[in-house]
């Protein structure tokens, strides 16, 4: 799905992020700006320490920016009060993490249902929605199992189902395939692609794996906290796009920002 000229879902404007003490400041993000249209599947790539997770954390309100603005649906999320952040995250965002972040004490069904119980949805509605998303992700048979009883791929699909179940405006995935084998990774990425294409889910995925990134429609390359390059898949096959990504990655060793 190509970005159009319409108003972007996410507008990141000159954000900066500094860590450390005044004596030793680390600039994690440096004047980062980009837009994400609704229904886009964007991958963010970069080497370790390039600032990709910091960028994701800033967008997801888990972290704060030192300068700049982030607008989601026209609302400046850098200005949201601390007390409103929980409700904002609950209603607007969905998260998928490398280590799944499932609660070990809950069954897969209960893990998926958790955001809905937090939103105080009726139990009947919770059950219907959980079943629907679980069937779509082919984990319907494992719903009564605990995370320790299922495979990594099932865990990550459960995490993805949990992120999707509230129909968030934006899904953010931080290295979602990092703990999975190649088969489980491929299955998960296919699901993500299908969800993006069929349901119009907007996905922002951080990864350092070129193959995973090739599932996105657009890729942002970060280097030393700045956007180094940006490529679009367009009508290219995923194989071609994959090779294009590798070419860009080979350039990441240089020091020319875009």
């Amino acid at each position, binding site marked *: 799905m190509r970005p159009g000229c319409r108003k972007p879902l996410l507008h990141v404007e000159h954000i900066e992020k500094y860590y450390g003490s005044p004596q030793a400041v680390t600039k994690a993000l440096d004047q980062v700006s980009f837009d994400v249209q609704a229904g886009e599947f964007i991958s963010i790539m970069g080497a370790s320490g390039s600032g990709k*997770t*910091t960028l994701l*954390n800033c967008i997801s309100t*888990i*972290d*704060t920016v030192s300068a700049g603005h982030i607008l989601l649906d026209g609302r400046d999320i850098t200005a949201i009060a*601390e*007390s409103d*952040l*929980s*409700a*904002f*995250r*609950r*209603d607007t965002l969905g*998260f998928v993490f490398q280590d799944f*972040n*499932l*609660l*070990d*004490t*809950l069954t897969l069904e*209960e893990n998926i*249902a*958790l*955001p*809905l*119980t*937090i*939103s105080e*949805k009726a*139990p*009947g509605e*919770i*059950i219907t929605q959980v079943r629907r998303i679980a069937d779509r992700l082919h984990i319907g048979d494992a719903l009564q199992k*605990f995370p*320790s*009883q299922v495979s990594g791929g099932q865990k990550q699909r459960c995490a993805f189902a*949990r992120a999707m179940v509230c129909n968030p405006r934006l899904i953010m995935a931080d290295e979602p395939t990092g703990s999975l084998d190649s088969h489980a990774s491929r299955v998960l990425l296919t699901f993500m692609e299908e969800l993006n294409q069929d349901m119009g889910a907007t996905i922002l995925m951080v990864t350092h794996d070129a193959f995973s990134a090739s599932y996105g429609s657009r890729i942002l390359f970060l280097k030393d906290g700045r956007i180094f390059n940006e490529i679009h898949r367009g009508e290219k096959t995923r194989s071609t796009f994959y090779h294009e990504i590798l070419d860009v990655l080979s350039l990441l060793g240089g020091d020319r920002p875009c």
Partner: protein
Amino acid sequence: MLSKLSLRNARRAFGEYALFFVTLSCCVSAIYAFNSLIFSDTVKALPDLEILPWLIIASSLLVILIMGWIIGYMISYMLRKRSREFSIYMICGIQARRIAALLLRENVLIGILAFVAGILPGMLLSQILEAALLRLFGMPFCLHVPFFLPALGLTLVYFWGMLLYGMRKSIRWIRRVQPCELLRQDQSNEKPPVSDRGRAVTLLFLSLLSCLAGFGFIWIQPLGKGYDVLAGTGLLVLFLSGFFRSVPAALTSRLGSRAHWKYKKHRLVTFRDFTARIHSMSSIMGILSILFMLSITLAATGTAIGMMVTRSTQADVFDIMILRHGETGDFSRYAQMIREDFSGQDSYSQDLSSQDLSSQDLSPRDHSYGIYASGKTDFLTVRNQAVVETGRRLNRPYAEFRQDTCMLQSDYLKLRKLLGYRDLSLDPALCYVHCVPALERGIRTLTRERNDLECAGYPFAREGVFTEPFSQNNGYGNGMDYILIVPDGAVKSLRLLYGVYAAVTDRPLSPDDLGRITASCEGLVLLDGKRARSGPDGAPTRFVYEDMDYLSGKWVSKAELHYLYSIIICLFYLSLILVITGAAILATQVLGDWQKKQRQNRILSQLGMSGDLISRLVTRQLALLFLLPLLPAVLVSICFTFICTKKILVSFFQLPIVTDLVWMGQSLMTALVLFSVLYGIYFAAARICCENSLKNTSGNSILFYEVR
């Protein structure tokens, strides 16, 4: 290398060891404090406490077993938390026995520090205990440094005994365990102790049945001779054990599948948090419930004994009573000494004459008079009926109390004045009754219903019953639970039982004072409640010697109960240790999982749960954890407290000096307040720790910590 590692581990994990450390220190303090009582010269000088050292030693051995178990539990719990670390040691090639040695070193290190840290509070606690004990004896307390080397040595032996006893299981486990087992620890949820719902419900039904049967045995006591109490105790312990094995399992299987229940009101996380540890929690809750039940019962029993001593002392209103069998005689030499030594007032005493008792007006602070037998038993029958109606066994009466006892109106009025009671104007042609409150109703009924009732030809006033404390509870004072107040003119028709010299002193009399009185007055001995001899007609009498005077009164009666203080001390000792044990287990449960909890709260926060709601869930989980074992424990301890207090009451008072239920209620309430204070401290500490942990989780600042 391993020494350095164990030192570094102990230092690094001090936060996690803090609870362990505090529990060990508390134990050291309690053990040292109670052991120092054995070696304190002040305590040694107290009379009738010969049994105290043996009781403390026996209690300490029990404490070693209990604390050894809790230490074992805590070490094992911490081991499982560190299973990954130990697996890495194993993978790196360190032998299991060397890891066990490392663990031993760490715990010994913590033990040494806890021992040193516990001694100073232990010295403080020993001073508090000593002060409380001396207060019970009515003796002054002087603050001193209670450092006793033998007490320290004994504490050291007990402490290391329980520490090594506690560690043995964990050391054995670490030597046998495989690295893969360590890696898998804590990853999966526990299975319920009873997996089948039908079985759980059956077990629950049986445990409730056991509870009812237990209560039935204890209340009704169908077997007698203590067998029913034993059977009841066994059944109630079975109930507690069965209840905690079946209820969580039944609830889990029933509620786990009920989406309409678990998805409402944010119950899901709390519910699953509980079921995840259902097996260990079921066992622990059962054990905790038994510990708390014992703790409350022991404290309530201790309180009841203490109250019994206090009530008994309060019912004895005369500080000194000197009795002379069969005659009144001359009490002036006693009066002179009492006045000089204890009154501090310049009172006057007339020379006493055995012929004219009514004129033996010694002073406003003392008085001597006679106790007579009327030759009738109308009131004795009422008294005996009341004893039987209150569920007590009727003892064989002393020879002096096989008939109604009497005193003259003039003596009665003087004694009332001496005690500061309100003035009465008694009709010199009528008889009155002074009795303990428990007899009031029966005696009023008798005087109202029997028009022919008389004593030495004098009828009884219809409403003439008085019930102020009047030294009537133990006998050999002013009658056994009652005395008839007869006109002075009746004296010729009455038989003199014994003469009494009664005095009220300005200050309490210590055992030393009592010893001094008997030592300085030839022919005066203590009225010994445990000794009696048979009289000419076979009835027992406490006037063992023919030509002696007997010293009695409030402080002599109290001194007879001094041996009970040893029991009170040990009961509170055990109660204290049991609360510490139980609360430490709970706190271990709460705080041992803080990393897991932090992760859980972080995820909930990421999913959009507000900080307030997370905080409410934490409070709910804590309340569940702290209240669940307490409720059945309180229920069962009510039953046991009733039994213990009733037994105590019945053994010491033929007639209740307060209503049995009030007595039981007061003891239970006192025990619950003491228990709640200690338990509340642990709850507050756990809540604060959770709150701090929560702040670290919900704030964005800590989320950075997790950011890669």
